[in-house]
Every structure is written in structure tokens, then in C-alpha cells.
């Protein structure tokens, strides 16, 4: 006791060291059977969970940065809750990754001690925050895409991933509705709010195509199903055998339908802007990020790196 600053308590040697309510986290998958399903490549499954976990973690961080900046108290509470849901998903997915690849890494390693090129999130989530219209637009795009993805992952061949997805679907349904309602309110609101929504759509849309571009890991885990249960025991039903992953390209039509429905109600149009290309064809899933990412990580990881023995 008698610390000079609050963070020093993090390195206190006691087993139950706690410096605030909600700290002292244990393994969020404690007691969950994390055995690899037959025929599933542990390294690929881990890489896939890192991708989905990083999307949630980095999006959550950008939403957390909105705290105290939102236009009214209800939005403060809403955005903080959405960020918390995504942080919870990130914790489970990154812990799943650590268990799947056998490397023994916990969630803190993934969040705080990886360099930029090891983060596998799509670039959409790392972009600098803009105005409230930009928050609404990015959240609409992100949650529409992620809801479609998690909805299909509810039957993933990995039961842990399936359980995380089933829980996430319930949460993201609320996130998408929240963003969609604000899109309508702003798009069909005043001239100024309409103008800002149009500008936000044009800023966000160049990063949409990337969401539907499959990384080789996603491709492998998505087709593994078709061939996967080829041990003959299942006879002719291998066509319906669940895959571990989903090829994000298959989500595009649902995404386009939902966005068309929302934009129409909001008197907005889908912008005609070119996608932002990657670097030599490499995208966020390959560990190639935008300039904003380094600054984001520097902030997000600073406390953990300054106190590497700390417990949270």
C-alpha cells in the first residue's frame, strides 16, 4: 500500500491484487473445453480467432475513445455499452486463439504485447474517429457485417467459436439497430445532419470492400468443411457439415440488402467511391495497416508496456 500512483498497485504481488472493481480478471474461458475438434488445424483456427478478436478489440478501443465526447448522456451510455460488448468478444476470441495454437499466450499478450504487423483486424476499425455521423456510419457498416458473420458462425465446427458467435449475435443485433436508427435520424434530419452523413459514408465506404475479401486462412477454414468430414462415417451429408470459418465474400448480398434498406429510409444514397487498395495487395488481415494504427496501439498498449508484470 502507499503507492505513488494507481498503476503501481498492478504489480503488487498478492494473488488477489485489485485496484478497482472489475479488475483482477481471470481466464474468461475458465472451465470451457478448448480441445481442438478433429481435423481442425490449430494454427489456422488461432489465426482466425485473432482476426475476429482484433476486429472487436480495435473497434472497441475507437468506441471507448468517444467517452465524454458524445452529444448526450444516453449516447455516452450506449456507445460505452457497445464497446464493452465488443471488448468481451475480443477477450473470448483472443483467449480461444491462445488455447488453439498451443502457444500458451493469454489475452493480455494479444492485446498489449504484439507489434502492429501482427494485428489482423480489417482497416475499417482502426481509422481515426471523425464526427458523430462518422461514428454512426462506421458502426452501421461494422455491425451489419459482423452480425451477418457471427450469425453464420453459430454453427461453426469449433464449438467454442460457435458459442462465442451465438452470444455475440444477440449483442450485435442491438448495436446494428442503434446505428441504423441514428442513420435514419441524421440522414433524414436537417440539411446539416444530412450533409454530414453523406460525408461520413464517403469517408467510410472505401474500406467496405476489404470486409468481404477472404484471407487465405479464412478460405482454408471455410472449405475445410466441404472436405473435412471426409472420413466416410457421415456418408452423404458432408455437404451440410459445418465449416470452422465463413468466407466473408458470401456475406456481401445480405450486407448490401440491409444497407439499402437503411439508406433508403435515411434518404441517403450508396456513395460511388473507389476502394482504398492495400500495399502490394496486402490488407489489414495480412498485418498491413493505415497510419492511424500505430498511434492507436501506442496509446492502447502504453500502460501494459510500462508495467509488464501488471495484472488487470
Amino acid at each position: 500500500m502507499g503507492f505513488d500512483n494507481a498503476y503501481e498497485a498492478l504489480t503488487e504481488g498478492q494473488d488477489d491484487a485489485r485496484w478497482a472493481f472489475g479488475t483482477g480478471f481471470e481466464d474468461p474461458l475458465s472451465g470451457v473445453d478448448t480441445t481442438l475438434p478433429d481435423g481442425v488445424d490449430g494454427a489456422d483456427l488461432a489465426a482466425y480467432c485473432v482476426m475476429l478478436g482484433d476486429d472487436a478489440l480495435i473497434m472497441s478501443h475507437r468506441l471507448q475513445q468517444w467517452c465524454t465526447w458524445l452529444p448526450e448522456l444516453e449516447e455516452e451510455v450506449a456507445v460505452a455499452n457497445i464497446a464493452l460488448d465488443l471488448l468481451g468478444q475480443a477477450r473470448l476470441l483472443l483467449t480461444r486463439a491462445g488455447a488453439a495454437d498451443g502457444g500458451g499466450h493469454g489475452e493480455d499478450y494479444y492485446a498489449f504485447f504484439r507489434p502492429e504487423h501482427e494485428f489482423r483486424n480489417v482497416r475499417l476499425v482502426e481509422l481515426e474517429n471523425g464526427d458523430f455521423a462518422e461514428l454512426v456510419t462506421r458502426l452501421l457498416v461494422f455491425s451489419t457485417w459482423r452480425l451477418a458473420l457471427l450469425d453464420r458462425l453459430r454453427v461453426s465446427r469449433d464449438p467454442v467459436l460457435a458459442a462465442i458467435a451465438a452470444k455475440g449475435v444477440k449483442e450485435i443485433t442491438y448495436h446494428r439497430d442503434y446505428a441504423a436508427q441514428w442513420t435514419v435520424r441524421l440522414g433524414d434530419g436537417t440539411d446539416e445532419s444530412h450533409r454530414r452523413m453523406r460525408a461520413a459514408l464517403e469517408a467510410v465506404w472505401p474500406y467496405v470492400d476489404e470486409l468481404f475479401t477472404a484471407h487465405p486462412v479464412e478460405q482454408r477454414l471455410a472449405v475445410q468443411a466441404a472436405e473435412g468430414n471426409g472420413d466416410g462415417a457421415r456418408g452423404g451429408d458432408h455437404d451440410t457439415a459445418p465449416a470452422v470459418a465463413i468466407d466473408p465474400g458470401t456475406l456481401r448480398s445480405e450486407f448490401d440488402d440491409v444497407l439499402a434498406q437503411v439508406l433508403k429510409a435515411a434518404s441517403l444514397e450508396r456513395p460511388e467511391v473507389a476502394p482504398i487498395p492495400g500495399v502490394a495487395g496486402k490488407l489489414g488481415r495480412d498485418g498491413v495497416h493505415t497510419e492511424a494504427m500505430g498511434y492507436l496501439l501506442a496509446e492502447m498498449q502504453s500502460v501494459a508496456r510500462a508495467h509488464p508484470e501488471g495484472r488487470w
Partner: protein
Amino acid sequence: MTSTRHHDVVADARAAAETVTDPELPMLTLADLGVLRDVDVVDGRVIVSITPTYTGCPAMDTMRDDLVRTLHEAGYDDVEVRTVLHPPWSTDWISEEGKRKLAEAGIAPPGAAPSPQQGPVPLTLEPAPSPMIMNTSGPMWSESVHDHGRGGGSAVRCPQCGSPDTEEVSRFSATACKALRRCRSCTEPFEHVKEI
């Protein structure tokens, strides 16, 4: 005989675990909330299974600590708390007793949860009336009661005066599991455990 004895041991451990209350809703036990999924005793070790209400629920670790402490105090030295993710928690698991206690505490209990479906999740586009927008908006923002996520079920009643004429102020409240509403009859704001 042995199995009867085992049954008694499990029942006693379960009774102890069922006294533990939720850190955020202390009027409810974890059993009322449907968070306590199972209690078993294996080789003298009490194994308690709990499930999170929301993925990011920060109270999970406190629940775990409270369960271990309570069982220790009840004389069980060897206690393990396990997380169960599947099937995901639903507000349908809140007991009738739990719903009654929520209403008594001024929190509107949830209605029936939407049933899980195959295929795309439908979008809810009707705007929730907002205190900021309500007075300046056009006909788009109707005055009717919107019962988001309630699948056409009955309206959320005000826990203070019982009126069904209530509106959603924000779909998110002080904890992830609650929405913020307001009663148009008595004008009191109140929280509502939203259906998932």
C-alpha cells in the same frame, strides 16, 4: 444408498450456491437470474457452472469470487467455478420469483425473449423517441409506443404506476442488460431488463 448420500451432498452445496446474489442487482440471486447453471460435487470438489449475461459483463469475476467465498464459508474447501458459454444466456431464464423481485425494485422485468431463428436477423428501423429530437421532429417520429425487440408482445409496464404507456429513452442503460425507459403517465424514468 451412496447415490442418495451424493444427492444430499449436491443439494446442500447447491443450496449454499443459490444464496449468492448478483453484484449489480443485489435483490436477485444468481439462481433467480439464470446465471447459475449447475452445481455438482465430484470427488469432494464442488463444481459450480455459471454463464455470462453479456460477453463483456465485468461482474463475472466478482460472481466467481462471491461463489467461492460463500461456499468456503459453508464448509466446502475445494471449489471450482466454471464458465459455460453454450447455450447463451437468455432473459427467459430469469425465474418468476426473479421477475417479481425486479419489479419490486423498480426495474421492469423482461417479456418473452425473441426466439432464435435461422437466416438473417431482421432489422428494427423505427426510431426510439429521443428527448433531444422529440420536439423538433416531423411526422417520421410517431408518438406511438415502440416495443423494440419484443416481437409484438405486450407493452413494457411502468414499475411505479403500472401504466402500459411507456417509451424507450435509450436502448442501453447503466448495465448492458438494461434499457432506459420513461413512463408517460407518471413521467418517472425507469430501467427495463431488455429481452435477449
